[in-house]
C-alpha cells in the first residue's frame, strides 16, 4: 500500500510541476513567472523528499534543505531587483 501511495503522490507532484511550468511559460507579467518559479522550488523539494523515502535513505534531506534556502533567497533577490532596481544597495 505504501509503495502505491508513494507512486500516486509522485504522479501528483509531477503533474503539479508541469502546471507550474505552464504558468512559468505563459505568465502575463514577470511577477507571475517568479511566483511559478518559487512554487516549482517547493514542489521539487517535495519530489526529492519523496524519492528519498522511496529509496529508504536519509541522504536527500540536506539537498532538500539547500534547495529550500536557495529558492527563498533567489525569490527575494528577484523581488528586490524588480522593486528597487538593485539587489544590495
Amino acid at each position, binding site marked *: 500500500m505504501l509503495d502505491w*501511495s508513494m507512486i500516486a*503522490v509522485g504522479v501528483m507532484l509531477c503533474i503539479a510541476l508541469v502546471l507550474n511550468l505552464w504558468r512559468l511559460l505563459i505568465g502575463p507579467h514577470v511577477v507571475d513567472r517568479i511566483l511559478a518559479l518559487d*512554487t516549482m522550488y517547493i514542489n521539487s523539494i517535495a519530489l526529492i523528499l519523496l524519492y528519498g523515502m522511496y529509496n529508504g535513505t536519509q541522504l536527500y534531506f540536506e539537498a*532538500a534543505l539547500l534547495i*529550500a534556502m536557495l529558492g527563498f533567497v533567489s525569490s527575494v533577490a528577484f523581488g528586490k531587483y*524588480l522593486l528597487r532596481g538593485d539587489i544590495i544597495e
Partner: protein
Amino acid sequence: MNFWVELLISVLLLLGGVFVLVGSIGLIRLKDLYVRLHAPTKATTLGLGGILLGSMVYMSHQHGYLSIHELLITLFLVITAPVTAHILAKVALHHEVAMMKRTRNQHHVDTARSQLPPQEQSRDKD
C-alpha cells in the same frame, strides 16, 4: 511494516500530494496575480507539511529513533513563505499589475502604493 503505521503514512502523503496539486491547479486557473498568490502558499504549508510529516513517521519507524531533520525544513518553509508572498505582492503593487474588475476598494491602491493612510479616514479626521 505494521498496517496502521503504513496507513498513517499513506494518508499523510496523499493529503500532502493533493494539497500540492490543488495549489498548482489554483496557480493555473485563478484569474489575477493577487488572487494567484493565495494558491501556492497553501501548497507550501499544508502540502509540504503533510509530506514531511509522513516522511518523519516513516524514517522514525524505520530507523528506530525520532528523526528531526524534516521539522527543520518545515520550520524554514513556514518562516519564509509569508516573506516571499509579501515581497511578490509588493512588487506587483508597485508595478501596477492589473487586477480583476470585481476587486473591491480599488481606489485604495494608489494610497497604498504611496504608503499613505486611506483617503476616507483622513477626510473623516478633517
